[in-house]
Structures are given as structure tokens and as C-alpha cells.
């Protein structure tokens, strides 16, 4: 079954590999450049690389309202990396910059005092799930220096260990957002995208 999926182009990095991986998972992809056009889509993917401050800025330029409307309508949402972090209130990366505040909680830096812990957390880490999309442990590709911490632990759909255990994905209803990059995670990433797209 071919899902029609809108990839929101927030101007936060190259979308090609995200688009390609969704197409491989049998989705029909449209890249949406204007927040107003988001309303036409039922399925939305929000990728994002780079800094929280830049992301927060983009939210203020119309994307915030568009995404909030989409989430309020409980339509399917897939957030990747910064597309996960921006769902939260704020980040230690950019004090004062407001995220969407859809999920109560903050984004924290990996302990810079721990000499053993290289930051960014870069590479493949094993993810263990508790959500319905994460039944089996799977290896995914990560590259980030900050991790999310929802106040309500019910949000946590999967975890990975880097120093302490941290939240690798959140899930609720039609919302899935991952800290890792399924589009860079070869077959494991492909299977996750398929599972997400096969949801109702």
C-alpha cells in the first residue's frame, strides 16, 4: 500500500536520504516547503539536523502553528533527530529558545565531565523498545550531543545506553519520533519505517 507522506522542509539540512528511505518503504513523498501546505497532508515527517536554536526560530516562522495543528488533529507524525527534540519545551543547547512544548520535558547534554563519553554520540547503538513499534532490539545510527527527557515516562518508547540509559524514541497514538536516523540505519531503519507507515 502506498502512503502519501509529506516531508516538512524546515530548511534544516538535506532531505534527500529521508525522502529516498520513505520511498523505499513504499511511500509516495511530497516535500512541503510552506507551513500552510501541511494541512493538506495526513502523514507528516519532520526531519532535522543542526542546532535547536535554529529549529526554534523556524517554528516561530509558521511551522510551529502548522505542526501543532497537525498534532492536535492526531494525524500521523514522524519526527527525526531535531524533529524529536523540537517537540519538547526547551533545550540546554539553546537556553531561552522555545520548542513546540508538545511533550513536557527538556533536552539535555550528555555529561561533558565524563571523559569516557565522546560527544557527539556518533555511530550505531542498540535500541531496546517498550513501544508497539519496537518489539525487537535493533541497531540504529545516532549522531547527536543532546538527548530528550520527557517528564511523563509513558512517552518513552525505546531506550539506548550511552553512559546512562537515555530516551531513543517517543511514541503515542499516531506520533513517533526518534533520536536516531532510520534513513541511515540500513535494514533496521527500513523495517521501522515500514512498521510506522503500516499503522492506521
Amino acid at each position, binding site marked *: 500500500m502506498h502512503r502519501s507522506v509529506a516531508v516538512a522542509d524546515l530548511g534544516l*539540512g*538535506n532531505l*534527500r*536520504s529521508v525522502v*529516498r*528511505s520513505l520511498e*523505499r*518503504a513504499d511511500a509516495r513523498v511530497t516535500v512541503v516547503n510552506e507551513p500552510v501546505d501541511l494541512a493538506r497532508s495526513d502523514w507528516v515527517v519532520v526531519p532535522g*539536523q*543542526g*542546532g535547536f536554536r535554529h529549529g526554534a526560530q523556524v517554528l516561530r516562522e509558521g511551522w510551529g502553528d502548522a505542526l501543532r495543528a497537525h498534532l492536535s488533529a492526531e494525524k500521523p507524525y514522524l519526527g527525526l533527530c531535531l524533529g524529536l527534540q523540537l517537540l519538547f519545551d526547551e533545550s540546554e543547547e539553546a537556553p531561552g529558545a522555545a520548542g513546540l512544548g508538545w511533550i513536557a520535558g527538556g533536552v539535555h547534554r550528555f555529561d*561533558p565531565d565524563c*571523559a569516557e*563519553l*565522546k*560527544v*557527539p*554520540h*556518533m*555511530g*550505531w*547503538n*542498540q535500541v531496546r523498545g517498550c513501544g508497539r513499534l519496537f518489539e525487537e532490539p535493533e*541497531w540504529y*545510527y*545516532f*549522531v*547527536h*550531543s543532546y538527548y530528550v527527557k520527557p517528564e511523563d515516562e509513558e512517552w518513552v518508547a525505546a531506550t539506548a*545506553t*550511552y553512559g546512562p540509559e537515555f530516551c531513543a524514541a517517543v511514541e503515542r497514538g499516531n506520533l513517533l519520533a526518534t533520536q536516531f536516523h532510520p*534513513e*541511515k*540505519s*540500513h*535494514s533496521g*531503519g*527500513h523495517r521501522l519505517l515500514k512498521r510506522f507507515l503500516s499503522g492506521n
Partner: protein
Amino acid sequence: MLAKRLIPCLDIRDGRVVKGVQFEQIRDAGDPVECASRYSDGGADEICFLDITASHEGRGTFVDVVERTAERTAVPLTVGGGVRTLEDVRTLLNAGADKVSINTAAIVRPELIQEVSEQYGRQVLVVAVDARRRVPVEGELLAQQLRWDVCTHGGRRPSGLEAVQWCTRVAELGAGEILLTSMDRDGTGIGCDLELTRKVAQSVGIPVIASGGVGDLDHLVDALTRGAASAALAATIFHDHIHTLGEAKAYLQEKGVIVRPVTPGTPDGLPDPSVPPTVASATS
């Protein structure tokens, strides 16, 4: 737990893989897109392309190769070679590279590290450091003897920088990762310079990729354990089909190194359209 990474590196000139890569019984494989695709599906944790094209016209060819490779592979792609400016970085990222590696340009103008990192985030920036052991001067204290010079121009020219200090500096300036090559060991196949690798890995808070000298699987184990590297980059042992990535990972796992296990095949389990079907039956 975070896995240690294995990164096959391909040297590319005028859009072709320079030495060629052997897959199963097929040699040629001079097409970088095909090679990268096979590595991606064979268990590579990342792919690295190094452009050694001398001519200006050849650069466009390389960007085109990066673009087509990004379409085909489903693991991160790092590209480097001749990257001088912020504009070069932008071009390669837009072509689909996940990370861009800079070397000489960072030595000439260290602010470039800061600029790239501020513009695109430090995760896209790999700073490549070519280091050569300094010949000890007679009468020098033992502690002063163990030094490495940062070189440019393929290791021929010393830059005047000391390698461990330079690595510390690039990390401070905003590099996301260091690709550390021992010029003494590069191409020798006798193993990585473990003292160099360990010293740098312990001095910086960002991941270090060990490179130069990997000739067998024990060298990979050494680089990732005694050398304390986060990843190992290798060319010959994979290109010449001395070992597959699957064998390398099985061996590392046996030695207690955490790796991502290999499940060969394309991401979606379908045949890769960029790889022509094997014609083994025609020759038998």
C-alpha cells in the same frame, strides 16, 4: 552500548575508484556508486570517499558521484579531499553527504572549523589529521621523543604543528570527529600506530577514527581496543577481498569488541538496481 565502527574508504579520481575493489570474483568494480552500495549492504557502518582528483573539472564529477551514492546507500557517507571553503562543504552536503572531511584547509585557516560547525552543526565535520612520527634528536629526553608532526600534501610536508596539540585544538574549535592517519603506517599493512591513536583518543572528547596500516583483522582489534579509537578506517583489506566486513565483525565480536552485527542484503531485501547481476555462471 555504542558499537565500534568499521569504515571502508574509497579513493576516487575523476569519478572512478582508483585501485579498484574486488568483490567475490569480480575485480573491476571501478564504479564508486556500485562499490559503496555493496559495502553498505555488506555491513559497513559508514562509507568514506576521498576525492584525489587534481583537476578543477573533476570536482563536478565527484559531486555527481556523491549524489548518486547517497541515493543508493542507506548508511552514513563521509566525503573529503580538496575541500577548501564553506561553499565546498555546502555543495557536498547538498549532494547528500552526511559528513565532510577537511584537512589542509583547516591547517591553513582554522576558523573554517568554527564556521562549518556553526553553520551546519559539528556532527557534519570531520577533521582529517595526517601525522608522522618525529625523528628524535640525539640527547633528547625520552618523554620528548614521542611526538608526531602534522603533515600536509600527502604526508610530504610538515606543517609545524604537533599532532596531539592540533587534535585538541580542532576539537575545541568545533570538529565533530577526527580522522587520524599515521603517515608512517599508511599503506604498510603492519598495523596502526597505536601510541598515536591512543594518545589522541585520550586527549580529545570527540570520536577518533584510526587510519593507516590496517593489514589484518588483529590490527582492527588493536586500533579499537588498545588504540581506544571509536572507529577504524581501512581500504586494502576490504577492497582486495582479503576479508569481508562480515568476517571482520565476527572476529571483532569474538575478541569482545562491540560491533553492529552484519545482516547482508539491501535495506528492503530487494536486489540493488545499481549492482549488475553476477555472471559467475557464464565463466564456469
